[in-house]
């Protein structure tokens, strides 16, 4: 061990740790399978809706057994054929039918956004996918007790925490963007527009969620359970409640960014006075600020924490 010494570098060790921890995430097979499984199921459902009743009003029926709205329109169109003798009536009927069809086309984007992107993706899949990777960055190491190999290396503990954050972030971003893309693509042309409008908010939301769940992974022994409880009790419930409590939730700011992009398509919160949206820049800064503050606090916390899991 005494031949030509080469100075070890903590920076080199830190970069190696990022790569190593990133590869280790592949070992969390159960989570990857679960995440991909959920993506397949959700995409399948969107494809099914797109191919059957669609996201507009045309394929809907007023009551079971009745013709669809498209069939009603066709019936009306056939009942009032262009007639030079009653040009005024024909023009009126044609105008009404065109208006209905155009407004249905503009209805598809908000409908798809509301149900697929906001309810399923932002409200459920995005936090779930993010937590499944982010909580395991340190949590899985602790659970398998292999974390000791990290804490015995000559690396500052805060650097270990930060390296794990950077290692897990590409996984979370990749999964969420691929997931959003798959869901939107399954929704047809309006879905593709939705992806173009919402991917940026997804990136910002994912970074903030990753920072939060990574922190939870470092401080709790059962981080996945805590993160799940947080996601579905705080993000989902508080995020939809009137008042200012929802401003503590990450999904609120993600939605604000998305609403800002969707406004041009006539998609707004159902009750803007209740939702009390913030501007795009504010939402962006809050999400990035949340990620930075949580990561900095996590580094500070982690540098002072002892892990006595096997004692």
């Amino acid at each position, binding site marked *: *061990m005494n031949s030509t010494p080469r100075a070890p*570098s*903590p*920076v080199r060790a830190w970069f190696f740790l990022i790569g*190593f921890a990133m590869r280790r995430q592949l070992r969390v097979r159960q989570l990857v399978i679960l995440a991909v499984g959920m993506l397949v199921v959700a995409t399948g459902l969107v494809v099914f809706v797109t191919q059957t009743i669609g996201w507009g009003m045309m394929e809907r029926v007023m009551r079971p057994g009745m013709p669809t709205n498209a069939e009603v329109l066709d019936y009306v169109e056939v009942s009032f054929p262009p007639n030079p003798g009653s040009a005024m009536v024909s023009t009126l009927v044609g105008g009404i039918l065109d208006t209905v069809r155009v407004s249905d086309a503009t209805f598809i984007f908000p409908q798809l956004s509301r149900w697929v992107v906001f309810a399923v993706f932002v409200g459920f899949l995005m936090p779930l996918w993010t937590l499944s990777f982010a909580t395991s960055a340190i949590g899985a190491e602790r659970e398998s007790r292999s974390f*000791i*190999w990290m804490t*015995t290396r000559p690396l500052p503990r805060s650097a270990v925490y930060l390296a794990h954050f950077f290692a897990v972030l590409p996984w979370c971003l990749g999964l969420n963007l691929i997931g959003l893309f798959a869901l939107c693509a399954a929704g047809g042309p309006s879905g593709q527009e939705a992806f173009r409008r919402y991917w940026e908010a997804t990136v910002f939301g994912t970074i903030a969620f990753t920072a939060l769940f990574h922190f939870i992974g470092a401080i709790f022994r059962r981080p996945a359970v805590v993160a799940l409880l947080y996601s579905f009790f705080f993000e989902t419930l508080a995020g939809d409640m009137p008042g200012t409590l929802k401003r503590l939730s990450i999904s609120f700011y993600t939605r604000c960014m998305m609403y800002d992009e969707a406004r041009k398509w006539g998609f707004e919160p159902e009750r803007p006075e209740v939702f009390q949206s913030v501007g795009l820049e504010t939402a962006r800064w809050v999400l990035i600020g949340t990620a930075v503050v949580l990561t900095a606090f996590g580094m500070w916390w982690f540098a002072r924490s002892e892990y006595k899991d096997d004692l």
Partner: protein
Amino acid sequence: MTENRMVFRGTQELEIESPLIIAPPKRLSPPPPTFVDDRPPVLLFEQVSKWYGPVIGVNQVTLELRSGITGLVGANGAGKSTLLRLATGQLKPQMGRVSVHGVDAWDWQAKRHVGYCPDVDVFYEEMSGRRFVLTMARLCGYDRREANRRTEEALEQVGMRDRADRKVRGYSKGMRQRIKLAQAILHDPDLIVLDEPLSGIDPVGRQEMLELFMKLASQNKCLLISSHELEELEKLTEHVAIMSRGRIAAVGTLQTIREMLNDHPTTIRIDLEQPRELGRLLIDSPDVVGLEMPSDRTLIVKAKNPKQFFRTFAQLVMEEDFAIERLEPLDDSTHAILGYLLGGSGKT
């Protein structure tokens, strides 16, 4: 074996708590170094205490190690692992300070000087032994070439070079211990902390490991080795620290401890139906220095030279057919030391 020096500081306080502590220990050979070494010790515990909630892990431990091998023995729950984790910066003391080469053991820079072979049998199981050690080398900050070189050297030292390409999950306990040791020595640390390194290793493997420890000690390394088995440690070193209930009950050479133990009267409680009769017979023994009868069925005996005393006592009990209901050493430290020195597991 190279220089091995343990110095106790603050012995006055410790002596009050635990009269069995000797400072500094007497040496058989070579003679104790009398020079004053200005360099900070490799490992220094200064009045260190550590609690887990209401349970005490280590209690006011003061210990100074330089080079050579030091054995750390004690029963389960005595505080050995806590002491080792404090030394390796896995835990922070609530009171006192632990330092390695003058740097706080919790500080990441101290870990450059520390190699730790933990007792937990955990690896990245999907890796080969070579890949695991290489990963640990890279995490120490070496570039690929240097990490490879150190990995091969460490594997060579622990005798695993030709078997290191198999997956760790297929290794025997002994091979896993060797891989753990390889990762502990690859960065050439001055302090090597080994928690139960011989457990699960076959006799031939043990011998090889003992030889390796001796070799490391001969390279001026400081080895702190914990074990349940004093017998194993005796093959390595004369210098041991005996832990009991979070305290260092005794420290020094085995011979010194034995001598000291002989001079130090130990207190034993004996419950039986005829305490008076037993007391009458025991009073003639030259090792018994005091007797007390707090109740009709209890005899408290103060005896020096415990090994001889217990021999006499056993003979008397057999000859006179006393029905002993309870036998309990009342001095905890003595209890622990007796356990180890008389060849038990720490439970007398």
